[in-house]
């Protein structure tokens, strides 16, 4: 149990208008998990629970082998946390923040920090209050990365960034991932960013985990199958269909368990089999689970 970087079991957190229900997830060392969900799905709540900033009403959380929130101070020595919402201390400069972090973290890598300052085109003498959103995200990322943490928890770090800044930030994550012992839990509603860096995906919607699998598994399992039925023909009963759209003789089936056997079952009327991108898989998956839950 302790070798996992994050382990959540049956975590529940109830607010007046929202509840996180029975959330379980595991992050192995070296794994990069994309935590994807629509706005208000519970991504930030889950990550804050992992950081000990809020406590669960039920369930168990362990991060880097430490019980959270009780042992959060020890666990956070090895966690880098960045959130799109997070701001630095407004009356202090970036340079002051760097000195502050260096004084707290013995592993602080000054030369790497200096490299990131240059790469992100930041100015150490600039006051945090005067940083733009993109600069702020880059600055918090710099402070998190230069301490060389074993685990990075990133809460929508690319939200609100322009494409260039997003590219810079994502490239930096890719660099971090060269070290196999590190792991990243990366929340976003931007599936393009998640698809680029993640090896595992967890979908969350309305406070519940709806699916979790390897990225390649998702991309292999999900297909859109187009069928053109001749007049009078009836489509056989096909299992594992999560969405069915009919337009006259044309039927589009979406499956989450694609196989050659499935095509054989449908018969000779298949006209086209289409791969789906992550965004399509995510949206279809979420809608399917909402329907299944009667929401």
């Amino acid at each position, binding site marked *: 149990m302790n070798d996992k970087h994050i382990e959540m079991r049956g975590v529940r957190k109830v607010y007046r208008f929202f509840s996180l229900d029975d959330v379980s997830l595991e992050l192995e060392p070296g794994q990069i998990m994309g935590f994807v969900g629509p706005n208000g799905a519970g991504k930030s709540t889950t990550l*804050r629970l992992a950081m000990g900033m*809020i406590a669960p009403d039920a369930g168990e959380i362990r991060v880097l082998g430490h019980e959270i929130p009780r042992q959060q*101070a*020890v*666990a*956070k020595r090895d*966690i880098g946390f960045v959130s799109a*919402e*997070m701001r630095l*201390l407004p009356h202090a400069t970036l340079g002051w923040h760097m000195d502050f972090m260096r004084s707290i973290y013995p592993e602080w890598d000054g030369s790497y920090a200096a490299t990131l300052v240059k790469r992100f085109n930041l100015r150490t003498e600039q006051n945090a209050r005067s940083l733009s959103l993109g600069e702020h995200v880059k600055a918090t990322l710099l402070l998190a990365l230069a301490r060389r943490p074993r685990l990075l928890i990133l809460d929508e770090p690319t939200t609100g960034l322009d494409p260039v800044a997003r590219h810079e930030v994502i490239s930096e994550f890719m660099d971090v991932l060269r070290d196999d012992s590190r792991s990243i839990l990366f929340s976003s509603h931007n599936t393009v960013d998640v698809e680029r860096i993640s090896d595992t995906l967890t979908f969350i919607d309305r406070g519940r985990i709806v699916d979790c699998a390897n990225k390649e598994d998702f991309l292999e399992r999900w297909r859109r199958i187009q069928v053109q039925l001749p007049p009078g023909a009836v489509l056989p009963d096909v299992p594992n269909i999560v969405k069915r759209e009919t337009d006259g003789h044309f039927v589009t089936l979406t499956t989450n368990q694609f196989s050659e056997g499935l095509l054989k079952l449908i018969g000779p009327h298949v006209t086209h089999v289409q791969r789906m991108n992550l965004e399509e898989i995510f949206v279809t998956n979420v809608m399917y689970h909402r329907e299944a839950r009667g929401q």
Partner: protein
Amino acid sequence: MNVVTRKLIAKELYINRWFIAGGALSGVASILIAATGKMGFNIGALTWLTTIIATGVMLGLYGVMNERKEHALQFVLSLPLSIAEYVQAKMLGLIACFLVMWLVSSAAALVLVFAKDSIPDGIAPYTVLLCVFMLANFVAVLCGALHARSEAITSAVIVITNMGVSIFMFTVGPLPGIQEHMWAAAPVWSSTFWIVLGCELAALVIFFTLPFLLAARRRDFL
């Protein structure tokens, strides 16, 4: 006390350095004005009181509420510390900030009382009580700000504690053991003085301890 808590206390002193310096300077300047005569005394006493109260309010608002409002709290809570250590650092750090200004301003006021012939030394006990009251008042503001989740509640705490200064002046000033010695040539440390001081210190201890018992045990700090 661990290294992160110590660094956070130092951080408060650094971040609030201009409030502290401005407050201390304003406190001393007010006393200098108070030394210029009767009119100056009234103006100086008023600005001295305002300085101490306003510095306390600013420290409470900027140190606690703004950190939460401007999402810098997430940054602080991402550091290797527990909620209890955060509360400890915040309490000790902001009290240290206030103490610098408070000590300078209080000392300046007592120097004025004892150095200026036109001001009777008998007012010294009342001055001490007023100074300690304002220290307890600040700790109450800080306690309220750390417990309150909304700006409205913090504002209410600030309004109530500000009113408390006026209430203190109008209730403690006329007390028999205080008022009768106020114009004496030498300070009289009456039993009333010690009772009021004891009450102030008790309130101070309560407001100082409450955040460690309640806010530090809060399950959700964001």
